[in-house]
């Protein structure tokens, strides 16, 4: 194979896999997938197959950058370094940066919730086909984001030149940051990555420990049963859609403000769908879904790391996460079929 021996290739892959940087990258690459997957989990539990999740990532990525940029500009308010002195200026800048990324998250959440409520309205009230509506919503965003980008920033393809790169703080965990391997692995990630991990437990608690979660699960599984004890099925599904937008939107924020630094067209590159697939594989259980999301993120990171070895064309490495998702979906369906077969054989 192109002058490389098989043992060399495996040796290389091994050297990649055993480096803690690679695992840290896996954690980073999984963050947006996981947000999308968690959002899908909640929607799926309420009985809505949320095809619009990829559009959610694409749009909220853009909205985050815009909110971030405007808020930073507003906080700095035209003050220049020369006028106020370096120290004061830096203090203001820091404040502006912090206000910026928080505004980015909040703005994205608001937009994400609106988008999901719109989707929910079509699917729940207008009885539209969820797949077709989802496709429509995703296409809507592929038009809307560049449109707004051009109107606001003057560039339709990205926001690279519009304003400074996103600033989301990196968190160094006190004790862990001094331990050799753990520091690369667990410390020094963007704050959103930690929020994401926290969200896994929040969503899990929400679904399994609260009354709302109980109702969401009941509505998704047997709406008639929920209705017979006086639960408003429609209301619960809207609540679930709202939560889906809330959690999913942070995936978009991570993509633009953390991963890329700015917004580019089709920034999600299908990550929303991969997240949706993860939640399907995890049967909408947040913990299981998280594991699958990490598997897909692992392939994403592997593909990127393997580029260093110019043996495989980069394009084929880019296919890895999609391929893994496809194979995962097929394996899942096979196991599901076997389960049904077994259940039948039991009779």
């Amino acid at each position, binding site marked *: 194979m192109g002058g490389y021996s098989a043992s060399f290739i495996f040796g290389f892959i091994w050297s990649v896999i055993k480096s803690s940087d690679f695992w840290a990258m896996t954690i980073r690459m999984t963050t947006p997938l996981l947000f999308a997957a968690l959002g899908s989990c909640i929607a799926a539990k309420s009985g809505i197959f949320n095809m619009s999740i990829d559009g959610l990532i694409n749009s909220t990525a853009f909205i985050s950058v815009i909110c971030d940029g405007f808020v930073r500009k507003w906080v700095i308010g035209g003050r220049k370094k020369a006028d106020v002195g370096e120290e004061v200026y830096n203090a203001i800048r820091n404040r502006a940066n912090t206000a910026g990324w928080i505004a980015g998250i909040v703005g994205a959440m608001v937009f994400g919730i609106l988008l999901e409520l719109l989707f929910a309205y079509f699917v729940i009230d207008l009885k539209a086909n969820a797949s077709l509506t989802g496709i429509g919503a995703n296409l809507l965003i592929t038009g809307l984001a560049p449109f707004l980008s051009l109107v606001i920033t003057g560039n339709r393809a990205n926001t690279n030149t519009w304003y400074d790169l996103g600033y989301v703080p990196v968190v160094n965990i006190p004790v862990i940051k001094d331990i050799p391997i753990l520091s690369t692995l667990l410390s020094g990630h963007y704050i959103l990555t930690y929020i994401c991990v926290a969200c896994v437990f929040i969503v899990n608690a929400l679904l399994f420990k609260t*009354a709302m979660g*109980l109702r969401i699960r*009941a509505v998704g599984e047997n709406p008639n*049963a929920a209705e*017979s004890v*006086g639960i408003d099925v429609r209301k619960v599904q809207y609540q679930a859609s709202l939560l889906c937008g809330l959690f999913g939107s942070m995936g978009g924020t991570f993509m633009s403000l953390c991963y890329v630094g700015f917004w580019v067209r089709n920034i999600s590159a299908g990550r929303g769908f991969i997240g949706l697939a993860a939640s399907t594989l995890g049967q909408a259980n947040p913990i299981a879904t998280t594991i699958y999301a990490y598997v897909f993120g692992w392939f994403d990171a592997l593909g990127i790391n393997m580029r260093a070895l110019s043996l495989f064309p980069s394009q084929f490495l880019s296919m890895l996460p999609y391929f893994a998702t496809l194979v995962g979906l097929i394996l899942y369906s096979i196991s599901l079929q076997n389960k049904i077969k077994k259940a039948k054989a039991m*009779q």
Partner: protein
Amino acid sequence: MAQEVLLMDKITKVYANGFVANQDVTLSVNKGEIHALVGENGAGKTTLMKVLFGIEQPEGGRIVIDGKEVQIHNPLEAIQYGVGMVHQHFMQVPSLTVAENMVLGMEPKSKSKIFLDKAEMIRMTEEVSKKYNLIVDPTLKIEDCSVVAKQKVEILKALIRGAKILILDEPTAVLTPQETDELFVELKNLVADGEHTIVFISHKLHEVKALCDRLTVLRLGKSVGKANVADVTEADISRMMVGRDVILEIDKEPAQPKETVLKVEHLTIHNDFGKTMLNDVNFSVRKGEILGVAGVEGNGQMELAEAISGLRTFNHGDIKINNTSIKGKTVRQIRELGFSHINEDRMTYGVADKASVKNNIMADRYYKKEYLTRHGLLDHKKIDAEVDELIKKFLVKTETRDEQVKMLSGGNIQKVVVAREFSSDPDIILADQPTRGIDVGATEFIRNQLVALRDEGKAVLLISADLNEVLEVSDSIIVLNNNEIAAYIEDASKLEEYELGEYMLGVKQMTAEEVAKVVHD
């Protein structure tokens, strides 16, 4: 003197399509009794209970609970008045635990007001479970529960919400005899405190005898009698239930059966939950006869129809049409053996409601040579001509052949189905509830068509929950009870309806030799 806890006085319910489900029905239930509500399928029992539970609004009549006249608009209000319903199809969420299902919609919260209080949930469940001596494991998931446990949960769900009047809709349909006995002990316990009252809906008369204090009989949407259970025999009840008013009389000559077309041999079918729905069933249908299948619904009629039409695989035995086994054959191959089929579920299987009348009529034959041009394309001219002819022949009231089927009335939709199924020159027609829920005119038309087809020498297998229909149209009748053939009546015209009722309701049973006569040659 017993105190009247519930009075439903002169309840009338007319559905939007004009069907009168209840007409001046009166039901009076005393406190602390188990009151049976009996009647055959379609007699209006379920509608009456839906009215009581607030799912349907009556057009007339009043409901009095504990001496106060009440208006019940939805299930929540019904629950507030102390009415609880135990649905035949359990209203439970399989992946949730028993305790979670119990408290759904009234969940206890922890002190922080955020989280569910699981301990409290379990405590509430255990408390109510102990109080009424219906023992369930609150931590078990519903999907892991036995049917009996699910039923207990369903009853407890009503009790935990403070129900004093419990409606049990055919609760024993899913139980074995031993489980049924156990349930009866529990129900008797429940009313022993004098606080609770049970309305027990059932077809099974020996159960009514074993359990209930008084009974009310519904027939064709009217209350036709009430009695103390102790004063009547099962045969008496059966006579009250199935006494009929002949609405439609069909003129027909005696049948002249010829060779066998459909042969069902040792057919055994288990449903998806492993329950045996048909057990070693044997019968045959001959050319020139209409064999009626009577029986309380849920005794395997649906499975029988699905198996013959190829929509369901069967476990043991064989089905032969014109001496060819249909095992492993596709729906189309079975149809090509000379089979046609009116499905009981008209809107799901009978038609594609958004497709045109024309396409619905052509659905089973569009691929045949006579409807194709030389080039293998659909010959619309010929198709249109045939469709127009069928529309005329079967009196389908439609403006054009291109009208969407969903725009037609129920009777006309069924005529579209019949136009397709009767015109494919079949040897055997399976008519499954052919006139359910349609107007009298269409009903008469379809029944006469069935008889006409018989006279042409076709074989007809008629499955119907409508006793009038079975008795009027059939030449011979088999009765399904307990998932087996309980009786074979060779000459249906000699059968009295009360006798049929006794076979259907399990009061009487023929011997194996008598039943075996249904297999000809």
